[in-house]
């Protein structure tokens, strides 16, 4: 038997192919490893446990095979279709599924949170008889419940986007628009303004909210600190674009400072000098 096996060429071809592949695998591993580490670093861990109930085997293989973005896109399209039907449980499930599959796009978190915080209270109130029929206190309760879910969801997003100004802005908007909680909104805007690549408006809305709450002195101090940091003219050498200058709105900030100086009765001698 043994000697016959020795003469069976396909067997030895197979053994040789496997051996060469293993040796190649071992030899190229150090060459491939840095690239793989880089790719891995861009890929948050897949929490399959939380997904397993919702996914078929085909989708699971797709996810493991490296097609998370497209699977998440497909689920997002599905989210949109159940959202159009005002189907609350399904929308909520799919929103969470999308970010569980691919938490990298901020877009999913932002828009998921908006659906939870702004659309779902509307659906619940409509289902409960409408804005006129439902007592205001109950409407407020629904707003609070949905906002709490949205805020929890957005806070979860920080796990994947730790320095995202836009997430703080989203949180601030929920506090401001849904819960009418100026203080929490102001704090969220302040946090947003301190993140890298923060939009300029976050640093302007924060002192506006302080003014609304009567904390003019704090607003004045903030704006005085802010003004010198704003780009005032286009400087290509420093990478300052027209868009940045326009959205920084330095003249508007300066006029707010002047308004506050009047409101706070600050003498001209102590007025802010740009």
């Amino acid at each position, binding site marked *: 038997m043994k000697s016959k096996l020795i003469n069976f060429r396909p067997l030895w071809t197979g053994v040789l192919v*496997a051996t060469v*592949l293993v040796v190649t695998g071992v030899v*190229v591993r150090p060459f491939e490893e840095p690239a793989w580490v880089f790719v891995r670093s861009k890929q948050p861990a897949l929490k399959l446990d939380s997904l397993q109930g919702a996914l078929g085997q085909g989708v699971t293989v797709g996810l*493991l095979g490296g097609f998370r973005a497209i699977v998440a*896109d497909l689920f997002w399209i599905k989210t949109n279709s159940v959202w159009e039907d005002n189907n609350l449980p399904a929308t909520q499930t799919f929103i969470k599924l999308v970010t569980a599959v691919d938490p990298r*796009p901020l877009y999913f978190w932002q828009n998921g949170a908006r659906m939870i915080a702004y659309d779902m209270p509307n659906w619940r109130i409509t289902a409960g008889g409408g804005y006129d029929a439902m007592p205001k206190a109950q409407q407020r309760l629904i707003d609070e419940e949905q906002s709490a879910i949205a805020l929890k969801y957005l806070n979860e997003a920080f796990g994947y986007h730790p320095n995202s100004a836009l997430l703080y802005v989203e949180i601030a908007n929920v506090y401001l628009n849904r819960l009418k909680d100026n203080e929490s909104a102001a704090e969220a805007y302040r946090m947003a303004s301190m993140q890298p690549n923060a939009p300029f408006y976050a640093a302007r809305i924060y002192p506006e909210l302080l003014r609304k709450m009567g904390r003019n002195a704090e607003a004045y101090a903030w704006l005085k600190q802010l003004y010198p940091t704003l780009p005032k003219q286009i400087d290509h050498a420093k990478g300052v674009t027209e868009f*940045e200058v326009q959205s920084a709105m330095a003249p508007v900030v300066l006029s707010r400072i002047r308004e506050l100086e009047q409101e706070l009765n600050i003498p001209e001698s102590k007025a802010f000098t740009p």
Partner: protein
Amino acid sequence: MSITHRSVPFSLGRLGIVAGNTFLEAVRQKLFNFLLLLAVALVASAQLFREFNFGSSELKFISDFGFGAMVFFGSTLTIAATAQLFFSEIENRTALTILAKPIWRTEFIFGKFLGVFAVVGVFCALTTGLLLALLYHRENVLMAANAEAFEQGRIIHYGDLVLMGVLQWMKFGVLAAITLLIASFSNTNLYTVVMGFFVLVICHLQYLARDAYGSVASLPLRLLVRLLGYVFPNFQVFNLADQIGIGAGIDPAIFLRVAGYALIYIAVIGGLAVYSFRNREI
């Protein structure tokens, strides 16, 4: 009567002739026709995303679906075209005629490979080109409509997308070499195609075996897992489109590393295909 006595060294020219003929066969067999279908599907899906009003994220959707289609159709094309263009030679016995000429089997196999690689290259170039054109058009429209979302300038790194297209092509090159290796010893086209897809899936999941290595308790199983991790190339390393998306830049060093990884595998697996094919009784 006189006869010729000279040595016949390995010739890139002959390899090119086989490659050119293989490419021509693909073209004349209208293998590229389905590209038209793909183009229509891509443009139609881009149109669909506009309906959803995704804003600037529409571009991410177009890119994801574009590369998704490229990976899916490209893999299918690579496996099917390699198997078909190889077995058409065997089944029609043209291999018999050509190998009866003064040609090395290495030239024949690598010629076949290069022909398929060129076919897949055209596929990748056209798909990437179409995708870029689509993205550029939509980005311009969206920029005009919503300047705020583009305050940092253009969202899409077009150069990176081209690199991603190139990396997909390289991956398809490795896949073509694998399919050719399978074809070199297999008896039927169908077996080759099925095995090709099977190996494709394994190569995409190869990293799982690597990850599992540390957590497997039993030694023999552990060795098997380690072996599996080494036998198959890691295809996910090419999948930067999914990992990186449209925004962040690709490090050129990483790109070169991944491309080099592909070239090494193409050479090694191609060499094995030649070895296996040399032993094949035609």
